């Protein structure tokens, strides 16, 4: 169970955003992607989860090009983007129930447990529209947990979180990795974690 990117090139408009990026990630590893704003971190994540076709190079999952095995690959990953990806008119719980339910059947009971683990039980039944920025992040993190998948791709999971929630999220990451999961994390600061490798992108 390894995620491998070989020499990925992406052009955006006139800009050559990713210039031959390669990395390899095995079970139980965490890859910390760093780089200045606009370096292409988000772009890399989108390539890594198959939302974006690189002009050159390829991404492999278990030695298979993800273009071939798209659905199997994508059902093994969870991606948390900059914006939470929640429907403003549905409650937090309904959102989870829908987006997790697309992957595996799950009941409110279980979902509440995941919200519990990100300290978001109190807002489970509020429409996402009224949630605060950090509360939305927590719900998004809860979704990642609830997917129960081996590969996490997180884009700045700490932004808008208060100290307590940051610590909590870090613990969750540690557990995930310790239990044999893999994770690619984009974070400018605050990723105080032991076992991790860094990938540096330059603008």
């Amino acid at each position, binding site marked *: 169970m390894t995620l491998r990117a070989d020499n990925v090139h992406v*052009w*955006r*408009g006139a800009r050559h955003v990713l210039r031959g990026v390669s990395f390899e990630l095995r079970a139980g590893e965490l890859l910390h992607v760093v780089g200045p704003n606009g370096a292409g971190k988000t772009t890399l994540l989108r390539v890594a989860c198959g939302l974006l076709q690189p*002009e050159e190079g390829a991404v492999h999952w278990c030695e298979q090009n993800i273009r071939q095995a798209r659905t199997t690959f994508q059902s093994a990953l969870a991606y948390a983007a900059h914006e939470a990806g929640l429907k403003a008119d549905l409650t937090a719980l309904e959102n989870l129930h829908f987006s997790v339910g697309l992957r595996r059947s799950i009941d409110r009971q279980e979902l509440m447990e995941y919200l519990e683990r990100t300290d978001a039980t109190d807002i489970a039944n509020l429409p996402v529209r009224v949630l605060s920025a950090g509360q939305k992040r927590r719900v998004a993190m809860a979704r990642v947990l609830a997917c129960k998948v081996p590969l996490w791709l997180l884009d700045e999971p700490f932004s808008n979180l208060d100290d307590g929630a940051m610590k909590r999220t870090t613990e969750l990451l540690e557990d995930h990795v310790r239990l044999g999961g893999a994770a690619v994390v984009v974070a400018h600061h605050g990723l105080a974690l032991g076992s991790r490798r860094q990938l540096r992108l330059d603008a």
Partner: protein
Amino acid sequence: MTWAWFHRLASPPHAYRLVTGLGPWLYAASAPLIAYGLFAGLFIAPPDYQQGDAFRIIYVHAPCAWLSLSAYTIMATAGTVALIWRIKIGHAVAAACAPIGASFTIGALVTGSLWGRPMWGTYWAWDPRLTSELILLFLYFGVMSLRQAFDDPARGDRAAAVLGLVGVINVPIIHFSVQWWNSLHQGATVTAFAKPTMPASMLAPLLGALLGFMMFFAAVLCTRLRAEVLMRERQANWIKEMLSP
């Protein structure tokens, strides 16, 4: 494998060389044909027994109309090929085709409505064929503006290809509209199978003009394709080499 020749042909440098070589010949070939078709059509061919001289517009109208349809078909095909087999040149062909086809469509509309005045007493009628031809124009516009609307060209090409493919359904509708609805517009006068309903003296120039227009279309396509390739491959090495001897 057998497709090797095709891929070699489809590689931008080869295609570029091909069209560069082909273009002039096509222009050269189209000129006399069109000249013959129009001259013979407009001056030599006998006036139509019921339409008088008005019918002579057919020598411009029918070729324009036919080409407006075939251009779209070519565009859609090229786009689809490019989309499926990731052949970049196909997108270039499609992009080059669209404006030409649009202009032929406009040509068909204008000549048609000019012709409509004496025939039907009105420039425009909401008749299936006329309308569907108008729609064809909209389709061309749609494809062109969709290609424009994307920030990066690669995505624009692919999106335009999808739309072109989807829109292909309109072509048979236009062609058969005359059979399907009782239309003002007259049916096929020239078909491969049935024996022509036209005297040879009228038909020959029509065919000549048609062939000439086709050649002309191909020639313009070559020119535009050259431009497209140059524009798309401007970073490529082979162009730099070619331009800096």
